[in-house]
C-alpha cells in the first residue's frame, strides 16, 4: 500500500477541526483529493483505524464517511485477501458532489475563500517576480501550457493547482506553498467553471500567462495586481454559479442553514 507523503499527505490527511458534520467533512475532503488526483483511481486507502487517526475523527465517523463514499461510488470495498477500500474516480459523481457543496454555501463564504486565496496568491506572485529564477519561470510557463492543453476537468483542475502551488514555491516560501495546497483542497470541493462554460478555460490560461509575463519582466506590482484581479474574477464566477443554481431552484431543498 502506498501512502501519500510530503505536503500532499499533510494536506489531505490533516486533522479536521470543524466540529460539525464531521463525516460530511471527511467525504468532502476525500472527494476533493480524488478530484485533484491526490488519491488516484484504484489507489488503496489506509486501514480504517489509521485513516481515522490521521483525520482525527472517531472510527465511527470514518465508517459513516466511507459508507457515504461507497454509496456515491467513489470508494469500493473488497473483502478477503488483498481486500480493502479502493478509490474509484468518477467525474460525474465528483461534479455532483461539487454542486452539492456549492449549494451549502452562501455568497459570503465564496467571497471569503476568494479573499484568502487572493491574498496568498497575489503575495506569492509579487515575491516570485523578484525571487524566481529563470528556470522556475520556464517551469511556470510550462504548467500554464499544460493547463491550456488539458482536456478533462480533473487534468485542468490539477494543472491549475500545480500552477498556484509552483507560484508559491517560486516565492521561496514553504508557508505560502502549504497555504496554497490547503486552499486547493478546499477549492477542489467546488465546481470547476470551465466544466459549465468551456470558454472560461481560455480566460484562466490567459490570466495566468499574463502573470508569468509580469514575473518574467520582474514587474512585481503588475504580477500582484494581475493575480488579484484574476482571483476576483474567479470569485465572481463562483458566486454567479451559486446564484444561478439558487434561481434554478433544483438544489434549494438540499440547502441547510448552518
Amino acid at each position: 500500500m502506498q501512502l501519500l507523503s510530503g505536503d500532499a499527505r499533510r494536506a489531505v490527511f490533516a486533522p479536521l477541526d470543524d466540529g460539525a458534520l464531521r463525516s460530511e467533512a471527511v467525504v468532502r475532503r476525500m472527494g476533493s483529493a480524488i478530484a485533484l488526483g491526490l488519491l488516484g483511481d484504484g489507489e488503496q486507502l489506509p486501514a480504517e483505524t489509521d485513516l481515522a487517526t490521521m483525520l482525527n475523527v472517531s472510527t465511527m465517523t470514518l465508517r459513516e464517511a466511507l459508507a457515504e463514499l461507497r454509496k456515491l461510488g467513489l470508494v469500493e470495498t473488497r473483502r478477503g485477501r488483498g481486500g480493502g477500500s479502493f478509490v474509484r474516480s468518477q467525474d460525474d459523481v465528483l461534479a455532483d458532489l461539487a454542486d452539492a457543496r456549492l449549494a451549502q454555501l452562501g455568497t459570503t463564504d465564496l467571497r471569503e475563500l476568494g479573499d484568502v486565496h487572493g491574498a496568498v496568491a497575489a503575495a506569492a506572485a509579487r515575491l516570485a517576480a523578484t525571487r524566481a529564477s529563470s528556470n522556475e519561470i520556464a517551469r511556470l510557463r510550462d504548467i500554464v501550457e499544460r493547463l491550456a492543453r488539458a482536456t478533462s476537468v480533473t487534468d485542468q483542475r490539477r494543472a491549475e493547482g500545480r500552477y498556484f502551488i509552483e507560484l508559491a514555491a517560486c516565492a521561496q516560501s514553504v508557508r505560502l506553498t502549504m497555504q496554497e495546497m490547503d486552499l486547493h483542497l478546499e477549492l477542489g470541493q467546488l465546481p470547476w467553471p470551465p466544466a459549465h462554460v468551456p470558454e472560461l478555460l481560455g480566460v484562466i490560461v490567459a490570466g495566468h500567462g499574463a502573470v508569468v509575463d509580469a514575473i518574467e519582466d520582474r514587474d512585481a506590482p503588475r504580477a500582484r495586481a494581475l493575480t488579484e484581479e484574476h482571483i476576483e474574477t474567479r470569485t465572481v464566477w463562483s458566486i454567479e454559479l451559486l446564484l444561478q443554481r439558487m434561481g434554478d431552484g433544483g438544489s434549494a431543498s438540499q440547502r441547510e442553514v448552518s
Partner: protein
Amino acid sequence: MTAGVRPEGSRAEEAARVGAAVSEVVGRLFSTVTAVRAAALQPSAREGLRAGRPVLDGDVRNLLREPGQLAVGLGLVIAPQPERGLPLRLEWWQVDPDGGSLRTLEPDLKPTSLGYYDYPATEWFDVPRRTGRRHVVGPYVDVHGTGRYLLTLTEPVLVDGQFVGVAGADVSVRRFETHLLAGLGRLPAPFLLVNDEDRVVLSTAPRWLVGSRVPPGGGPAGPGAAVPGVPWRLHVVDDASPLRA
C-alpha cells in the same frame, strides 16, 4: 568601529575566512553524497538497479546519525526506464524535523496527481544527468517532496557508463545558516553568499534576505570572491542598520 569604515585589506581577509568555512561545509556534505554513491555502486546494489529491486543497504541511512552530519536527508534517486518497465523510484531517508527519528520519504509519484513529485524535471536530478557532474541547488522549496526549504547536493551515478540516477543529500537552509554562523564565531563584516542563479544563500546583511535575488547591476558592487568547490560568490557589503548605533 562601524562596518562602513573597515579597511579593504581586512575585508578581503574576512571574505576569505567566510569562503573557507563555506567550502569546508559544502565539501563535508559532498563527502556524504560520495558515500551514498559508493553504496549504490556495490555489487549487490548494481544488481538491484538492474532488476528494479531495492538498491541501497539500509545501513546507508545511518550516515545521517554520524557526529557532525549536517545533512537532513540523503539517498538515491533512480532514473526511470519505462522501456524496461522500471518506474520512478527513490530510496531516500530523512531526519524527522520534529522528533529526530529517521523516516523514509515516500512522495506521490503518480503523474496524474496534483501532488506529483516530478523529480526527473528537477534541477538537482536533471543537471547531473545532462552534465555528468556534481551539482548544488538551492535555496529552494522542495515542493511535493519533503516540503522543506533546502539546499540539495547531487552527483550522477553511472553504471557501465550509463546514467542510472543521482546520489544526493539535503541540508535545510536553517541548519546550514546556523552551523556556518556559529562556526564563524565573531561575525565578520556583513556579507552575502550568492548562488549561480543570483540568489542569496546566506546573508548577514538583513537588507538582503535569503532566497531573494540580487539582480545583476542592482546588487553589491564588484564580482565578489569565488568560493572554492561551489559555484557561489561571496560579497562583503555595507549595511547601515538602525539597530547598530
